[in-house]
């Protein structure tokens, strides 16, 4: 019993620390329960889909897919076209998703193949690939759109005649999904909005992941994640399967970005996607996931805890030290720090395992 409790505490240490931090910060910030519940519901609806898109590459042993920003860019291109043709409401979002899909498939295909050339350093490569593609994205959006690509809406195009504006208001698309099936309930004297439609979509996605794990492809991915060489000798097409894992993740990230932006309501054409990767990955890790193991519950716990800290820390910082800026920096520090810590712990564990197996070969018992 004691042992199992200890095991539980160790394997869930990260979420527990964050629960503790939030428990300290919430009373200091002085936010009402209703407000916080509303914020958490909104942010769960907004971010869960993006974070869920990270699960499949982890299953395939490719680590955290920093290349999900590629999908986010595809999603934004989809939204630009939906706005350009002024298709509003749910059809607009569907159109945006449909346009972003082939782009995301293509980018995912490229990303997967690049990562196959960099086995063992997938994360840093996908990370740099994100920056590289950002350059290409800027070229397309800032120079090609309105010039070569048929984007004409004055709402989108810069006054110089081509290129997309820095901030695009998603008129007609804003909250289209969230408000489609909205459910209101009272909590104290605070009316909480619950976007049922978005949660249904997220639920479907969770079911998809559960189903996918059981399929032949999903099993192949798990085998590759366990041991790439063994999977290869068992006749699994390792490289092809890895590419498929990244394509699925990229496409889902594109949909996730569409959902994310319809909730925000404005798109920062040149910045929105940049933070997507970092925030999603930090959220997943705070939920207790590791580089090699992540579950659906990690996603929801992580998004809740990460965003609780996100909402609370600036105010808490202000109340404590009198500077809201300090709280802002604190949450930036936590997002970066948690990723660094997770990476270090994972790599350290792997190194120790490698050393232990080497010692085993030498026949030493203690060392």
């Amino acid at each position, binding site marked *: 019993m004691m042992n199992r409790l200890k095991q539980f505490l160790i394997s869930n240490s990260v979420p527990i620390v964050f629960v503790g931090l939030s428990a300290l910060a919430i009373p200091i910030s002085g936010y009402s329960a209703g407000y916080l519940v509303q914020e958490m519901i909104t942010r769960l609806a907004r971010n869960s889909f993006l974070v869920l898109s990270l699960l499949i590459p982890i299953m395939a042993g490719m680590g955290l897919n920093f290349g999900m920003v590629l999908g986010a860019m595809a999603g934004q291109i989809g939204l630009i076209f939906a706005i350009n043709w002024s298709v509003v409401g749910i059809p607009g979002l569907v159109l945006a998703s449909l346009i972003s899909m082939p782009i995301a498939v293509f980018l995912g295909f490229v990303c997967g193949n*690049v990562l196959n*050339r*960099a086995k*063992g*350093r997938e*994360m*840093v*490569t996908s*990370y*740099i*690939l994100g*920056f*590289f593609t*950002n*350059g*290409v994205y*800027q*070229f397309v959006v*800032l*120079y090609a759109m309105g010039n070569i690509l048929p984007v004409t809406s004055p709402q989108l195009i810069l006054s110089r005649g081509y290129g997309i504006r820095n901030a695009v208001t998603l008129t007609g698309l804003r909250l289209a999904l969230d408000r489609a099936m909205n459910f209101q309930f009272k909590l104290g004297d605070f009316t909480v909005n619950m976007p049922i439609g978005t949660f249904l979509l997220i639920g479907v996605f969770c079911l998809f992941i559960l189903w996918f794990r059981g399929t032949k492809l999903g099993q192949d991915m798990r085998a590759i994640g366990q041991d790439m060489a063994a999977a290869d000798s068992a006749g699994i097409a390792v490289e092809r399967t890895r590419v498929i894992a990244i394509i699925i993740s990229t496409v889902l990230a594109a949909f996730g970005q569409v959902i994310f932006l319809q909730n925000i309501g404005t798109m920062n054409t040149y910045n929105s996607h940049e933070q997507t990767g970092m925030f999603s990955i930090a959220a997943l890790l705070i939920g207790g996931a590791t580089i090699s193991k992540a579950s659906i519950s990690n996603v929801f716990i992580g998004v809740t805890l990460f965003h609780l800290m996100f909402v609370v820390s600036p105010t808490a910082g202000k109340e404590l*030290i009198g*500077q809201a*800026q*300090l709280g802002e*920096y*604190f949450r*930036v*520090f936590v*997002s*970066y*720090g948690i*990723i*660094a810590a997770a*990476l*270090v712990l*994972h*790599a*350290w564990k*792997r*190194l120790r395992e490698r050393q232990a197996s080497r010692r085993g070969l030498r026949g030493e018992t203690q060392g």
Partner: protein
Amino acid sequence: MDRLKNFIEDFGWPRIIIGIFLLCLFITAPFVGVRVGTSISDTLVRVGMNGVLVLAMVPMVQSGCGLNFGLPLGIIAGLLGATTSVQFGMKGLLGILFAFSIAIPLGLAFGFLYAQILNRVKGEEMMIATYVGFSSVALMCMAWLLLPFSSPVMIWGYGGSGLRTTISTDGFWNHVLSDFMSVQAGSFYFPTGMFLFFVLMLTVVWAFFRTKTGTAMTAVGSNPEFARASGIDVDRMRTISVMLSTALGAIGIIVYQQSFGFIQLYMGPLYMAFPAVAAILLGGASVNKASITNVVVGTFLFQGILTMTPSVINNLIKTDMSEVIRIIVSNGMILYALTRKTRVKR
């Protein structure tokens, strides 16, 4: 023909393309009304500014710790040195020497701690280095707000505490290295002092890699198993290389600031590792091999492109695409190095 093919394979397509691109820029420059003298001296100034930061990559690459994406850590040590020097009102050569004397020990200390992390994560250094760099920048953001600096030129006018985001080095040690024996001929300006300093640093690192420790370090980078078998303490060599890299980063940022004229705090150092990484790769380094020549060639090519593209492309097509080109070139270069199949397995 075969030799040409071999050469191209050795040198790598991206470098050749970028080299030719830069050459084209210099050739077209006079025709589109860009003054070549100014362009060349701009390029040279930027080479001097960034050279030491690029050099900071060498020790870690050589010892097999990979590309030093954790450069911000060294930069932070440099920033602490620079701000302390300004706080005490140190001026001129004395000021910059004082900044160095604070920054170098701090850099060595940070490097030591950083190496303790990196020695436990062999094989995944680069990603971890990136995030260790990022989180230390964020941690320092809080520190800049809270540290007890009081010099009125550095803290926010209102509130009376917390450092400003940019601090001018003007009146302290602005251009002390650059202007030492500098040459000014019309629009052409050559920062002799800064280059002398850069050459000094290059020589120090070059000489270091010829000592016993330096050779051992290279051995660790080329083949850690072999190095261990021949009695070299791998972890110790890696620690020394990380300390050296971090201290060079600290020196590099101070050289950068005295030429740039400003100390940039808070999120300023966040992405500073990427241009330096791209530059050394452009110069022909790979993920586990780098030389002094790579530093010089790479810095010149990279800064040449950064200086020439805005002016030439702007005049040519009346559009400023320099930012996009910079992003694609620098990250493309890093991507190429990461995905290149290493012929000799280490």
